């Protein structure tokens, strides 16, 4: 029987050989505690990998994947405000609940598994390889539950987290509105006021009242909805500072007005919802809705979307490799033609580079969370700074690479790729959302470039640059990367006194340079542990120099142009 974890040799390698479990676990578990289910780090690691094999990999390959086509065909429907899932999707959700996987990162005291983000990220990748749209239940759950766990009152945690652990409750996050997309500071949904906005709580229940419309809400029909809404008087506290964060439970006052008809992820309902004077709990402090809680939630969700894209990329890559082996033209399999062979090699290389970045990021996120939970101030600050830079970069990189891989995979399929009979047609549609939601690639780049120029990840890069390779070949390749790194550093230094607008203009070039170099370093480290990776690293680094040089030149020559005849 296929297994989407063990069959994915690269993912299994990263989990087994690359992740620094000792470091993660030192932060996240206290061995010897009565409550800790592991004797030591080794046992914990073995448990994580075992769980990825079964249930995660088993379920994905043998139950979820076979249903993907049907779910894509039928899609979700909305009748009289009720969202109706295709039967196969209902089975998927039941299987995830039965396998007790819905609370992967929720604390054990609330019935969850309390696994590190890295394990969850891998699970999301595996599930998304089987059906990307299912990730929007499975992968959204974590970010929402974690936000509640981090910022809500103990009562709210007890009220919601156990039921999110079992999967009885699924979540949604309601940020976007018709006039507030990338710019969430423009959110209009109001949290109780009568005339004007004089925010006040219901004196009896302590609850707030929310009204307004939200658009493009994934799983807006879910049970626990986190809502960004305006609680402060705009005259006194306008823009983002006037927004607070709320928890709304599904009920008659939450109306699903319609669901979108869309290009891909048909198994995930995208809802327009209307809060009709709906009771809500405040989460955390007033006025911090955007700056603190949404930012926190988005960070978690971005990692999840990166993993979703990674899973789709893996699926598209495998489809291409399979097809190119079977399809014959001019008397031989098409993979024997130089151009197709090169495309396949590049696809695999990019897929593995993206994966390297994704899990290096998840590791940092784990270290950050762990340091915070342990109250280690310096580490929290350091890891937090790195995580805030790497997460948008990882999201940007994995989603753009995944799009590219799906594009190439479809190309390798020729005319068949354009037909619904082949899975690549669905993958090609599904992958397209990944670099749009949870912040478009442009928004990720804006986040990234300001932090790169500020030098927020310099220490990480210097560490990689100074690593001493015992192997002469690897040391030589490292020399190649260092040349590109110098070039990148000169561009960043040059940008220091440029205006924000100009930095954003060349943001894609700078981010591409950075992530290329970062991925190259990571692949080279992987090559120390797995012979095969030498070939991947060598190919990647051969292309690195020219790409970095190109991006440097493009940045140095960039200009604001508006072209119109």
């Amino acid at each position, binding site marked *: 029987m296929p297994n989407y974890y063990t069959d994915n040799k690269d993912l299994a390698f990263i989990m087994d050989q690359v992740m620094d479990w000792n470091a993660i676990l030192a932060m996240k578990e206290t061995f010897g505690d009565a409550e800790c289910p592991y004797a030591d780090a080794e046992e914990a690691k073995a448990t994580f990998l075992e769980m990825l094999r079964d249930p995660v990999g088993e379920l994905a390959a043998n139950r979820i994947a076979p249903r993907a086509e049907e779910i894509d065909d039928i899609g979700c429907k909305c009748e009289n405000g009720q969202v109706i899932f295709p039967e196969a999707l209902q089975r998927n959700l039941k299987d995830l609940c039965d396998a007790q996987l819905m609370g992967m990162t929720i604390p054990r005291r609330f019935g969850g598994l309390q696994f590190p983000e890295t394990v969850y990220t891998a699970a999301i990748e595996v599930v998304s390889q089987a059906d990307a749209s299912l990730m929007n239940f499975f992968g959204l759950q974590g970010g929402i539950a974690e936000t509640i766990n981090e910022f809500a009152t103990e009562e709210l945690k007890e009220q919601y987290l156990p039921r999110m652990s079992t999967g009885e409750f699924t979540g949604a996050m309601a940020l976007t509105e018709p006039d507030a997309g990338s710019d969430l500071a423009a959110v209009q949904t109001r949290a109780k006021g009568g005339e004007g906005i004089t925010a006040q709580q219901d004196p009896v229940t302590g609850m707030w009242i929310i009204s307004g419309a939200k658009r493009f809400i994934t799983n807006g029909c879910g049970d626990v909805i986190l809502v960004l809404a305006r609680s402060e008087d705009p005259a006194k506290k306008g823009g983002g500072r006037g927004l607070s964060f709320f928890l709304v439970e599904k009920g008659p006052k939450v109306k699903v007005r319609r669901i979108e008809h869309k290009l891909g992820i048909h198994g995930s309902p995208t809802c327009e919802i209307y809060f009709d004077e709906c009771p809500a709990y405040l989460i955390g402090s007033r006025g911090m809705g955007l700056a603190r809680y949404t930012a926190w939630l988005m960070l978690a969700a971005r990692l999840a979307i990166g993993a979703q894209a990674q899973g789709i990329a893996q699926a598209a890559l495998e489809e291409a490799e399979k097809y190119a*082996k*079977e399809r*014959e033209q001019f008397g031989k399999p098409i993979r024997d033609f130089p151009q197709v062979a090169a495309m396949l090699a590049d696809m695999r290389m990019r897929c593995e580079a993206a994966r390297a970045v994704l899990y290096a990021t998840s590791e940092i996120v784990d270290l950050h969370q762990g340091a915070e939970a342990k109250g280690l101030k310096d580490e929290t600050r350091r890891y937090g700074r790195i995580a805030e830079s790497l997460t948008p970069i990882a999201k940007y990189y994995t989603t753009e690479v995944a799009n590219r891989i799906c594009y190439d995979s479809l190309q390798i399929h020729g005319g068949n790729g354009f037909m619904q*009979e082949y899975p690549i047609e669905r993958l090609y549609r599904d992958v397209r959302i990944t670099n749009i939601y949870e912040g478009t690639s442009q928004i990720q780049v804006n986040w990234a470039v300001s932090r790169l120029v500020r030098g927020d990840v310099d220490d990480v890069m210097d560490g990689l640059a100074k690593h001493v390779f015992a192997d002469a070949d690897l040391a030589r390749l490292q020399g190649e990367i260092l040349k590109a790194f110098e070039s990148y550093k000169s561009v960043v230094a040059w940008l220091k006194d440029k205006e924000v607008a100009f930095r954003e203009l060349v943001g894609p070039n700078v981010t591409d340079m950075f992530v290329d170099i970062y991925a190259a370093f990571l692949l080279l480290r992987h090559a120390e542990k797995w012979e095969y990776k030498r070939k991947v690293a060598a190919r990647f680094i051969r292309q690195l120099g020219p790409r970095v040089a190109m991006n440097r030149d493009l940045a140095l020559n960039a200009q604001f142009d508006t072209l119109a005849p």
Partner: protein
Amino acid sequence: MPNVLVFAEVNDGVLHDVSLQCLSAARQVAGAGGRVSCLLAGHGVAGLAPALVAAGADSVAVADDERLAAYVTAPFAKAVGACLDANPADLLLLAASTVGNDLGPAVAAARKAACAVDCDGVAAQGGTISLRRAGYDRKVMTTFVPAAAGLVVGTLRDGAAPAPAADAARQGAIAPLALDLTPAELVSKVLRRDVAKKTVNLKDAKIIVAAGAGVGSPDGLALVRELAQALGAEIGATRAVVDAGWLPADHQIGQTGATVRPDVYLACGISGAVQHRVGMMDARTIVAINSDANAPIFKIAHYKIVGDLKVVVPKLAKLLKA
């Protein structure tokens, strides 16, 4: 020379052809000195006894009893036991069918006898009976021998022995066998049967076009049917197709279906699971059409066509009609 008892299986009033093959295997093992007896059990089956004599039985015990109308283990095992008690045998042979593979081991278990099922051959040398059977995905042939003297039970696969030539002139004793069944032996009941009547004759077909789950729908099957017509072939199927209800059960080829040896076997959208392969791998020429180049069926195919059957099958039909 060993004495052999053969259990003659009857389905819908017809002798199982592998039971007849068992008779010829029994004759060979028994040689000149051994006795081949036969148990014919069921309801309304007595008339088949002469055919068993003609096929090589020296004697036939007939247990014709309404309590044996449907197969359940205990009463049939009792009948075999009674036969063995009356005429001790060294070897019991049965067809490797769902009945034989249930009954043989049941008798062996009750009498602590040596047993092997799905055998490809049986032999007796120097007084020792041995059974040969393939295992490990048909990668290993194992020869079994009993650990101690006593009864050996074996079930034979279709084709393990040749069909006997019927000789109407042969003589043999036909005698009824009285059955004394206790209530404990009658606790299991067949409530209902959902079994198809035979409408095709796959065994004698020279050309078989077989459909697998890859046909996808009755529409896909229609394409296969058209090709079969153009070839003058019978239609076979995998269990997946029968389970889907696209073809009746008598079209099924494989371990729980028919075993066939046509000149040409055209497999359309069949993955080639071992349970299917055992039923068709001895076809003289095998052509496989499958969109998955790694499908196991290609390992035994003489002609491999990697492609969509919905495209390839109509093309073939058109070429034939042209």
